[in-house]
């Protein structure tokens, strides 16, 4: 193993042990790893945003020759004047640094929130509300190829479970009497589905730790041989 990967393995192993030490209690090693992680990762995403959004989509489109040093291919495209708009909103956002004009930055936030409302409304209308109703419409009886009691019971459980689950979420109706009982069945359905979902994902979490332990074993077996 050459020097580079050997060094990276040692740094990775030490940082792994520092993070795991948090399970015992807070200590200087964890605190060091935490502050290191915050510094490296904040800068990492800033650099990614710079090279994948600001350069190609803002400056690259607004005035292509500006980014020729990094993206020569873009240099011959015609400038897109419409990119003035995001540039303007970017400047409005930065006005926060000027106390007197700080409230102008709300315009950039307003655009972001309007974007969230507009895109989420139609996406959830389509995939979460409408298509889930469509998929819930199923025959309550299973008779293809032959009548199956098991299949029918299951179909009933699914439809009635969904309906009672929805009843639990009613806000403007007192959960009393028959309505209250159906709502209780609804929370029971939700609790069973939460318990099942929790049990089902335990495996995925354990495999994360297995991966780290395999890395540490490789460090122990190969890390102590200094690359010649």
């Amino acid at each position, binding site marked *: 193993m050459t020097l580079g990967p050997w060094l990276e393995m040692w740094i990775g192993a030490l940082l792994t042990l520092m993070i795991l030490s948090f*399970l*015992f209690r807070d200590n200087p090693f964890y605190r060091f790893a935490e502050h290191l992680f915050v510094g490296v990762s904040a800068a990492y995403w800033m650099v990614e945003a710079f090279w994948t959004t600001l350069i190609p989509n803002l400056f690259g489109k607004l005035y292509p020759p500006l980014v020729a040093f990094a993206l020569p291919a873009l240099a011959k495209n015609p400038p897109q004047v419409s990119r003035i708009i995001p540039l303007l909103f970017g400047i409005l956002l930065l006005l926060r640094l000027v106390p007197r004009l700080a409230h102008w930055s709300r315009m950039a936030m307003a655009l972001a929130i309007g974007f969230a409302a507009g895109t989420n409304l139609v996406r959830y209308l389509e995939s979460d509300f409408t298509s889930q109703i469509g998929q819930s419409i199923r025959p309550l009886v299973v008779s*293809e190829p032959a009548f199956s009691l098991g*299949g029918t019971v299951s179909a009933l459980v699914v439809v009635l479970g969904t309906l009672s689950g929805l009843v639990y979420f009613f806000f403007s109706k007192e959960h009393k009497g028959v309505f209250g009982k159906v709502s209780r069945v609804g929370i029971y359905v939700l609790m069973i589905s939460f318990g099942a*979902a929790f049990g*089902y*994902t*335990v*495996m*995925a979490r*354990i*495999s994360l*730790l*297995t991966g780290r*332990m*395999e890395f540490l*074993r490789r460090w122990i077996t190969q890390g102590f041989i200094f690359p010649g």
Partner: protein
Amino acid sequence: MSAFLDRVGRMDRRLIYVAIALAVIIPLVAGLTFPVITTPIVQNIFDKLDSLPEGSRVILTADFGPSTVPENMPMIQAVLRHALHKKLKVYLLTLWATGIPQLDALEQNVLAKDFPDRVAGQDWVNLGYKAGNQGVINSAFSDFPGAFPVDSKGHDVRTLPIMEGVKRIADFNLIVCIASGFPGVKEWIQFGGDPAHVPVAGGVTAVEAPLLYPYYPRQLLGLMGGLQGAAEYEAALVKQYPEYASRSEEAIQRMGPQTVAHLVIIAFIVLGNVAFFTGGEWRRRRT
């Protein structure tokens, strides 16, 4: 006794952390494996493949990228070994651009090593990657050679003996889709299996499996979920054909830490409830 149970009821978190760490490290270091019992949802796939007469045609898809190889690869290797052992005609293909390396790996690790006598283009064919997601299945439904005109080496499929008599998806006896997302098992059911009345079996990552349960058993005859599903198929294969024991137990080995960790968690849940019922909390609540 109740003092002990009381302490068990409020055990220090760190004891649990140590137990989980050991539950993962010991099986890893000792190479511990446990009997894996094949559940019906996986046994159905094995039995279906085992029941197919020699020469039946099986589509085996590798619709997953490199990041889910640890979960998906053991599944597709076990199914491929089983199909080749039964002398079935296997049609390997992928709808994922990042799926190509997985098909090549199958050629080296399984076909070349374990079945060197099998002839490409006659016993099996690697049709490589075709862009278009469910559109590819849709066109293969009515014209399979049209959807996959050339194999991964560039030969025209019409010249390959394995493609004789293959016009549409309906000409196949089984579709086994090993996938980790879109396009995947759902698309092969909706655009392939259902319309062509060809049985579909699936193998997906643990995260993807819950979303496919509603299709089982009517539109999906069986489903391998995560490493557990792969280990169950390997167990069924090795039980029926012991000669594959040495080469086909990759998932079973990696299930060691999983099984012990699950047992440790179950034990803590039971312990917590035993302490709860005998300990103060239950009695205080009752009086």
